[in-house]
């Protein structure tokens, strides 16, 4: 079983569209949406939820004002500016360290367990999908990503699947790290812009740090041919496989509006390129069809 993750550094380069296409093209697979902050894969996979689990994570301080004598120790010890002038807690700033609660001489501060999100196991027309929803303004998205991956892997092992296909999130921080560790390949989707290349290099530093093998796709490459060439040369010099280059086509937006993958929606050049890319990825990772 091979695990692949689609990441980009920069947002909006086409991760979810490409993940959706891979979902349509791969056989025997489990999909998982690791962008728990702003999950979108379900919008084109139309899941039917079979199981859901509450995700509890961390704690938040709560001040029992009737017990508070206003000594201010809590405000002094808190490093996250979460204790307000009237010694109530700003739950958005609270990191849940519990320092105030341990330090309060009146035992007036209770640490309450957070319901941080929900995890879903669903059926889709392409097979199982594991996805999640982080509660509004909650933290610990990295932990939720790890849980999503663990469930997806369990299902893949149980059903003897060939692939676990993970839709990643933008950035280089905690959820991205949680989504790339231990995968067989991270596919970085790059758009031909200075920002796209800059961000791809930064996320490449992270994949190298965690020793994750990488391949790239250049998306919307015809929006700037010079930049595309520059990106190709840069990655060739690093001996990183370029799986393919996809043109910009407004049909892609229409397929999203229709709730379909581009493979189902059209036989255009984008779909054709994605088929070629998928075959190449199968060969490179030595997965027999």
């Amino acid at each position: 079983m091979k695990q692949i993750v689609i990441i980009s550094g920069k947002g909006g380069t086409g991760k979810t569209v490409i993940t959706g296409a891979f979902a349509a093209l791969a056989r025997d697979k489990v999909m998982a949406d690791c962008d728990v902050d702003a999950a979108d894969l379900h919008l084109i996979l139309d899941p039917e939820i079979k199981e859901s689990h509450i995700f509890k994570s961390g704690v938040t301080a709560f001040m029992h004002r009737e017990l508070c004598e206003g000594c201010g120790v809590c405000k002094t010890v808190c490093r996250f500016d979460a204790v307000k002038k009237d010694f109530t807690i700003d739950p958005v700033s609270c990191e849940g360290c519990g320092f105030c609660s341990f330090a309060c001489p009146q035992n007036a501060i209770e640490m309450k367990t957070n319901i941080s999100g929900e995890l879903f196991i669903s059926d889709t027309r392409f097979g199982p999908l594991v996805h999640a929803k982080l509660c509004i303004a909650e933290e610990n998205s990295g932990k939720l990503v790890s849980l999503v991956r663990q469930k997806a892997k369990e299902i893949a092992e149980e059903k003897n699947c060939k692939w676990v296909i993970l839709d990643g999130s933008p950035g280089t921080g905690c959820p991205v790290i949680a989504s790339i560790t231990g995968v067989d390949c991270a596919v970085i989707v790059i758009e031909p812009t200075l920002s796209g290349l800059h961000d791809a290099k930064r996320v490449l530093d992270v994949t190298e740090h965690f020793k994750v093998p990488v391949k790239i796709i250049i998306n919307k490459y015809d929006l700037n041919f010079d930049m595309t060439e520059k990106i190709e040369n840069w990655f060739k010099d690093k001996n990183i496989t370029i799986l393919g280059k996809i043109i910009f086509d407004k049909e892609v937006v229409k397929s999203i509006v229709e709730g379909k993958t581009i493979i189902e929606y059209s036989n255009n050049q984008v779909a054709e390129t994605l088929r070629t890319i998928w075959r190449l990825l199968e060969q490179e990772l030595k997965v027999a069809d």
Partner: protein
Amino acid sequence: MEWVESNYGESEKLIISVASGKGGTGKTTIAVNLALSLSDVQLLDCDVEEPNCHIFIKPVFESSHTVFIPVPAVNQNKCDGCGRCEEVCLYNAIAVVNKKVIIFPELCHGCGSCTYFCPHKAIEEEKKEIGVIEIGKNGETQFVQGKLNAGMMMSPPVIRAVKKHINKKKTVIIDAPPGTSCPVITAIKDTDFVILVTEPTPFGLNDLVLAAEVVRKMRLPFGVIINRSDLGNKKTDEYCARENISVLMKIPFSKKIAGIYSRGDLIIKALPEYRKEFLELFKKIEQVKINRG
């Protein structure tokens, strides 16, 4: 309940943050073009995982400093293995095995609780480097950016370090990271107005709804900019009308703008007619502040 308390005092000037649920909708484009349309302005890049403003601002950097978080270090001579540090660490970053303290620095949030509660004063704090702050300018525009080091998990401390440089005497524009969790909350906290940039696709709308919930929970005034406004459907407009959210600006898709962006150029330079639009955007935001008193 009040969620947010301002740290920046009674500033006359506005602090405007630019955020989005979905990535790649045009936050940086809006932030840099708005900033450079105004005078007496400071631009902060708080997307410390992928800071891009510098590509467009082309600043001259004048200084930089490292961002550290404190992590515990145990003096084994003073430690008797009592386990109090393990008890007070809610992140499981400390384990005491056979009276010996083991620290997992990647789990540490730097709260300082273990140091404070150690009865033998055996825990000191070491500095762990997690990122860098760079300060510069382009002409009159002040610029500050944060960069998270590769492999580091926690961006909020770097974002907080950028925001420490807020200049109250200037209009401040903050480019926030995408998403709906801790990094974006840290970036938009205590700002006067949030611009949510979206695109009118099902992905854009889904993530806009989430971002709007975050901003509403934080009780911050906000409005929406619809980028590539002709690529998608009408549902984003319908949502904003239904929810009484003002649409501040619409930018249609054009290969010309995509090209300008890809080369790291400014829209207001290449297409000067846009400067007026950004000035009007700013006026609309000022009006919101006046109306709120």
